[in-house]
């Protein structure tokens, strides 16, 4: 966060997790909005024995957007990557505590990480479409990786995901062209489509707009809002206005005394920004530091 933030005007009242679906703008198409879909209990991540984020507990709720905010080094991305076991490939990393997806223990040895990731997808900071694949091939890459061969299912998924990512109309006539011909913002939307095509239940987004210009950022933010009836979203952002604009609930992390990130406050976004219970949250959302 670089630019100072004016005192935030409280965003329009959103339903808190306790009062789901009362003022929901859209009909809830899928699942009871507000039910916990992922539960984090005392989650800590450490690298080579040194804690990067410690004892985080909160619930990710269905069809809601959960934002992880906090200054650099507070462990937002580290925490996010624990949710679909992206730390598996980092030898020095260890995740403790419990993370559950529905009834599934995410970190259990019996849980297959590849299957888990078909249920918990991810979009990264920088657009990373596969450069050798066409737009269409990128969109269905996740399906192909998972053994889907049926053409009708591939086509249907590609169209649905590209439509959901607000990309279908502009690329439907050039699905066979290389993904690298798209602009940065389009590439990121293709990456979102690619993640959506697998139809995950939860989509993790790691600062998805940090490499984009303001116009492209606005489009992605609008998209995130539209997607929440389709998939539950957890988004990392260091942009507080972004968190305020897009999220329903918010987790504020801060680097503790021993450099490990800690959860300072968690709650409905409106409350966190207008009436936080922790003075550090108040300072942060008012732009006094960070």
């Amino acid at each position, binding site marked *: 966060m670089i630019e100072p933030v004016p005192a935030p005007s409280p965003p329009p009242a959103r339903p808190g997790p306790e009062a789901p679906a009362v003022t929901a703008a859209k009909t809830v198409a899928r699942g009871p909005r507000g039910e916990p*879909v992922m539960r984090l209990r005392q989650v800590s991540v450490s690298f080579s024995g040194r804690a990067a984020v410690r004892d985080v507990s909160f619930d990710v709720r269905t069809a809601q957007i959960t934002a992880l905010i906090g200054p650099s080094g507070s462990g937002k991305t580290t925490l996010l990557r624990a949710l679909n076991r992206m730390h598996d490939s980092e030898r020095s990393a260890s995740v403790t505590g419990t993370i559950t997806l529905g009834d599934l223990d995410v970190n259990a040895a019996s849980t297959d990480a590849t299957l888990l990731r078909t249920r918990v997808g991810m979009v990264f900071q920088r657009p990373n479409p596969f450069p050798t694949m066409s737009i269409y091939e990128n969109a269905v890459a996740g399906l192909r990786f998972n*053994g889907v061969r049926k053409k009708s299912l591939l086509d249907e998924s590609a169209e649905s995901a590209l439509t959901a990512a607000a990309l279908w109309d502009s690329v439907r006539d050039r699905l066979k062209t290389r993904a690298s011909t798209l602009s940065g913002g389009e590439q990121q939307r293709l990456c979102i489509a690619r993640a959506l095509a697998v139809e995950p239940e939860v989509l993790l987004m790691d600062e998805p707009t940090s490499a984009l210009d303001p116009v492209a950022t606005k489009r992605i933010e609008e998209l995130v809002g539209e997607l929440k009836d389709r998939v539950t979203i957890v988004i990392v952002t260091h942009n507080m206005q972004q968190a305020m604009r897009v999220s329903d609930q918010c987790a504020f992390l801060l680097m503790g005394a021993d450099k490990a990130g800690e959860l300072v406050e968690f709650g409905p976004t409106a409350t966190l920004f207008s009436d936080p219970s922790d003075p550090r949250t108040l300072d942060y959302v008012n732009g006094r530091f960070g």
Partner: protein
Amino acid sequence: MASALAFDAPSDPMLERRRLIHEAARSSLRRRALTSRVAVGVCWLCLGIAIVPLVAVVAYVVAKGLPAWSADFFTHVTAPEGIPGGGVWNAIVGTAEIGLISTAVTVPLGLSCGLFLAQSEGKVAAAVRFTADVMTGVPSITIGIFGYIAIVKNFGYSGLAGAFSIGIVMLPVVIRAGETAFRSVPPSLQEAALALGARNAVIARRVVVPTALPGVITGVFLAVARGLGETAPLLLTIFGNQYMQWNPTKPMDALPLVIFNNSSQPYADLVQIAWGAALLLLAVVLMLNIAGRVAAAVLRREKR
């Protein structure tokens, strides 16, 4: 997922796709896991096969060469024909002198050239880069012949002629290693210096060279190790010398030459000397590699 979303209408196409895709993922999991395991297995196998000759060479040289090592081996010069014993002291001195001379000449030359290549994108740079690349691929016997024609034909056999030939082998390696190291310096650092009003020479001296130093040192040590092991350029230039010779303007002996000459002899003790020299050369190359890495690591740590 079943628990949270079970009540949804099954007609929802999105949920139907989710069911189909996750079903496909689950049912193909066993096959994919197996494929993955086979692929990893094949990689391990190939790694094993690739490593066999490397390990075999080292093991063989150690096994054959170690018995040759003795105090005499390191301190005595070549024994006269027919007399057992003798050592390679004369060859050690020759290799050391030739190595030092060629390093002293090629390192400043090569690094300056590498710095130029790293900073320049022009046609000259492209031509030099291409030449250096071709030079690294030139068979070393060709360089030996060149040394023979250019130096030996005019001034006779000498250690200097050998150092000249070895230098030609080392030069392109130093140039390219230097360029790679200098190129790894982030352009943003150079821009920062530019924006402070620094001239190119100052940027090179105060920013580029210090930042690239660990990489440069590793590259130089590797180039020296490469040069010391070259045999063909020496064959035609230093002639060999059974006696102690400190003067590099005279014919000298060198370790690669000892290996080459002695290994084809019918006498067991001479072959033994060749194995010992081979092991010594291997040890020197190993030491240079380790020294290069350690020096670079120490420099990097000091900067932090």
